[in-house]
């Protein structure tokens, strides 16, 4: 597995988004860093990539190293780095597109949506043995998309207001025409034919142009889960990766559930519920033909995974997530608590950056 994290670059006087990605990346290039660090669509974002790991603890060690390097380089430029799925109060119209050919092209195609796309997600890659398995995994993970949304939700604020959502970030993604979920195809050959057709229509050029919540990524031989908000800490990012890894392992080894088109009948409903209400969402379970609370479905799944987590050495991670889910603890609640406590969204952004840097001094809504 591997992890990509999109991060916010903040200035240090009012904690608004800054526009220093170019300078920050140049400095990081100069001083050297572990992992990979890349530009993102606007100049207020950067993306960290881990290497490939099979053990989540090793992943965490690497993520911490990358984080420390980036935080130190940012401090030299008087900038702060923050996690979280959205910046609480930036104005999208002030954003500037990162100066590369691809991003300029996206601005041309998508107009203001490109600038509004200044939201921050975590992507988790899971390696797959072959194409058919990747398609199975992509479909079966759609059943668990609400889990990842609820467990990572960290974008309650957008453009200066409390949205009432736990994750408002995904609403931004939904505006794109190629977002949503992959068509219901189960054989790799059929998938390749579909892709070629879309390329024939000049709708896409590469897999990158599909903004699906879960998508196969043939270049890496992985399935990529893209619905997660970037958590407030690398620790949580690693926990979520451990969950994805264990879940995928269970799904591929055990093949516990049939994939069916019915899964996509409830897909949008479940996804919306999770964004809006987090752990308190309703969850429509196609296979059991019933509705339960998302919290119960998550807890149930975590318990089900227990034998597999022992094999993958992810038991500790899943225990933490279990505790958080049973207490309904999460980053969105943490951010709202910060807002209540300090009274301004500038302070929320500041807390986000301090939390990211690993200085957990302010509040402890999170264990």
């Amino acid at each position, binding site marked *: 597995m591997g992890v990509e994290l999109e991060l916010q670059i903040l*200035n240090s006087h009012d904690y608004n988004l800054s*526009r220093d990605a170019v*300078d920050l990346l140049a*400095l990081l290039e100069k001083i050297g860093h572990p992992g990979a660090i890349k530009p993102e669509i606007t100049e207020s974002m950067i993306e960290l990539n881990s290497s490939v790991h099979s053990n989540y603890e090793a992943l965490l060690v690497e993520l911490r190293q990358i984080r420390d390097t980036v935080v130190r380089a940012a401090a*030299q*430029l*008087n900038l702060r780095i923050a996690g979280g799925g959205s910046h609480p109060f930036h104005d999208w119209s002030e954003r500037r597109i990162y100066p590369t050919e691809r991003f300029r092209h996206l601005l041309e195609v998508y107009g203001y949506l490109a600038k509004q796309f200044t939201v921050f997600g975590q992507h988790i890659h899971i390696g797959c043995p072959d194409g058919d398995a990747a398609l199975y995994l992509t479909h079966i993970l759609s059943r668990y998309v609400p889990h990842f949304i609820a467990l990572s939700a960290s974008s309650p604020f957008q453009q200066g207001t409390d949205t009432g959502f736990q994750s408002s970030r995904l609403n931004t993604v939904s505006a794109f025409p190629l977002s949503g979920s992959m068509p219901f195809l189960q054989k790799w050959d059929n998938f390749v034919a579909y892709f070629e057709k879309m390329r024939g229509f000049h709708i896409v050029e590469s897999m990158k142009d599909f903004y699906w919540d879960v998508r196969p990524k043939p270049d890496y031989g992985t399935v990529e889960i893209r619905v997660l908000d970037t958590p407030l800490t690398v620790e949580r990012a690693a926990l979520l990766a451990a969950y994805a890894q264990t879940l995928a392992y269970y799904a591929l080894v055990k093949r516990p559930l049939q994939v069916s088109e019915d899964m996509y009948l409830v897909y949008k409903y479940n996804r919306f519920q999770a964004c809006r209400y987090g752990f308190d969402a309703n969850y429509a379970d196609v296979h059991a033909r019933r509705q339960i609370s998302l919290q119960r479905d998550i807890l149930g799944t975590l318990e089900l995974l227990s034998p597999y987590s022992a094999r993958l050495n992810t038991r500790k991670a899943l225990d933490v997530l279990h505790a958080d889910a049973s207490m309904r603890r999460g980053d969105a609640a943490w951010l709202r608590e910060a807002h209540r406590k*300090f009274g301004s969204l500038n302070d929320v952004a500041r807390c986000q950056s301090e939390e990211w840097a690993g200085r957990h001094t302010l509040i402890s809504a999170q264990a």
Partner: protein
Amino acid sequence: MANVEFLPQFPIPDNPFALFGILLLAGALAGELVRRVLNLPRITGYVLIGLTLGASGLNLLDTRMFDYMRVFFDIGLGLVLFELGRRLDLNWLRHDRWLAVLALAECLLSFGSMFTVLLWFGIEPLYATVAAAIGVSSSPAIVMLVARELKAEGQITERALNLVAINSVTAFVLTTMLLSWIHHEYHASWLIALLHPFYILVGSFYAGFLASVLVLMLARWLGKQVELHLTLLLAMIIFLVGAAEALKLSVLMTLLTFGVLVRNMDQDHALMSVDLGSFGQAFFIVLFVATGAMLRIDNLITGFGVAAGYIAARFVGKSIGVMCFAHLSGIRAGSGGLLSIALLPMSGVALAMTYSAGKFYPAFNEKLSAIVLAAALILELIGPLAVQFALRSAKEARTAT
């Protein structure tokens, strides 16, 4: 004859409010005209209209008006210095030591080169020293306002603002300490020569410190309410300008200290980062018109040679300081030059310093003005262009597209 005392008497007496309104309107219109016709920064327009109305032009703003104008000038300068102080981040200097080294080098080298050039022009050491000390400063008003007009944001802008703040503090401390020498030159007693700078430095610092403590206390009590924090800051800024004047302290140093401390002492982030810009804009315009009116073209004619040498020496000193250390201080390759260009302007603060350095000795003031004011005039006019050029070339200006 009927009693007509209810009617105004001729000549109609001067009125500070009418003057403020006229300066503001004239400045705003000239700024817009300069921007539309010549595509120059508005600030250049403010200064030009000031020159036109002032002693060098139509002489509508004669010396009688200067006392009124000083009030607006001081409030404008106070606002600018407070804003600038608030941008000075001492934490940054700790994280990026090379930036601190760069600031020090650039101050020392510019001082040294200006001093040498002035001596070479045959200026007496005392005047050369004071003028060189004043020249260490960079104009906070020009750099801040051009950055604001361009909505510039980024490493060059932030570094320029921090360096301007450091330059202003250094220049101020130097000129104040040099008061001892000036007093000594004019045979004042040793006690006065020592106490006067001490009183100004310590007094101004302490006033700024007290204001910061008080404002932070009140901000904590008020809670996070933008309007109230704005009012709180405005009240304290205007009060401090008045108090510093009444106590014969330095408006400059007091407000700068207030800005620096209110940010850097605010450990628990009690004060919101409110934007004084919309309120300040009126005062900023008048500040530049007034500066323009105070400058004199005849200074330029008599002192052009010296002024040119002084400016060149200043620019070379600052550039060498910046260029030597820019690449060590986490900045993009090649942007050191732009940073030096952004530090070129020198004006309002220099004027205020010249005025206060020579306040007690008119003869001294006259001689010093001859050296500094011509340079101030030139830099007041080309300074905004330089900053605009630097920030645009650094791609930090937010363009309309």
